[in-house]
């Protein structure tokens, strides 16, 4: 039986109408939330600063966070970085009523010392992104608003 995944939104950072960040949890591989909660002092401040920067709509710097849009296999993946710490996740547009709204769903924590990102982490993130369990978990926070025919349930 597949694990029941859960999703929780990041609290205490910038509240934006354009972007949001959360953690996908409920499997031993989904370590980003636990790692983030365990950060203290400089690590916690550094990651929250980077998250605020992204939530503000800033483009970089890449040393803080970046996507992988030039990597066709991982174009939806995303990472927040501080020193050797990495929080990997994927970008997603969860709101039918606002297709531009962007969610960064963080999945995996890893430490890294090499220059290039660990593709195995990205492969795992990509698998979670495609999983039905992840979509269901996120849809509890961002319920689907379209009806079965794909149209908006709101009538003029």
């Amino acid at each position, binding site marked *: 039986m597949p694990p029941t995944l859960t999703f929780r939104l990041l*609290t*205490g*950072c*910038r*509240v934006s*109408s354009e972007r949001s960040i959360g953690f996908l949890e409920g499997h031993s591989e989904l370590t980003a939330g636990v790692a*983030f*909660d365990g*950060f*203290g002092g*400089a690590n*916690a*401040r*550094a990651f*929250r*600063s*980077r998250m*605020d*920067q992204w939530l*503000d709509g*800033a483009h*970089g*710097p*890449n*040393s*803080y966070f970046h996507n992988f849009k030039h990597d066709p296999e991982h174009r939806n993946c995303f990472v927040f970085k501080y020193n050797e710490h990495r929080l990997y996740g994927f970008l997603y547009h969860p709101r039918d009523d606002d297709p531009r709204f962007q969610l960064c769903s963080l999945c995996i924590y890893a430490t890294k010392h090499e220059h290039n990102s660990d593709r195995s982490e990205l492969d795992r993130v990509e698998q979670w992104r495609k999983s039905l369990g992840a979509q269901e978990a996120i849809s509890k926070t961002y319920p689907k608003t379209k009806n079965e025919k794909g149209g908006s349930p709101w009538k003029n």
Partner: protein
Amino acid sequence: MEKLNSSTHWTAESTENFVHRIASDFIAQLEIKIEKGEVSRSELAHRLDRTPGRVSQLLNPGNITIGSAVRLVRAVGMKVALVAYDDNDPENHNGPVNSGIFYRCWKHMGAPITFFELNHSVAPVGQFGYSDAAANIEMDFRDVRIDRNAITWAVIN
């Protein structure tokens, strides 16, 4: 830190957090210049007469002072300002406004360097009732609110 009241921003928890956020924000501006290739870390180290390792330490938000901030921006040919502002958020629910917002607004206004230039660079906008003469009248901008979701771009342009 996760025990924060979700309605307050993490920088409301301590002055140290607030300092880190604005220092990180400041360093992000320099990191972007470095990443764009406008200045390399080695060139920055040379200009500061420091080792690259020491420059990396300077680019740590925990180590930033006003003095080191000035040295860093002067080394990349820029300047820095400390801006106090009232964003109508005394409880700090939203966190500090990104310095990049101030910078882009300033550039958008024609990068005035005196209040005279600012007064003359503000385009007359009928909707806001602005006039050159009115520029000399003290206004309480706390009463001026722009709906965050309003489209102001076309008006400003």
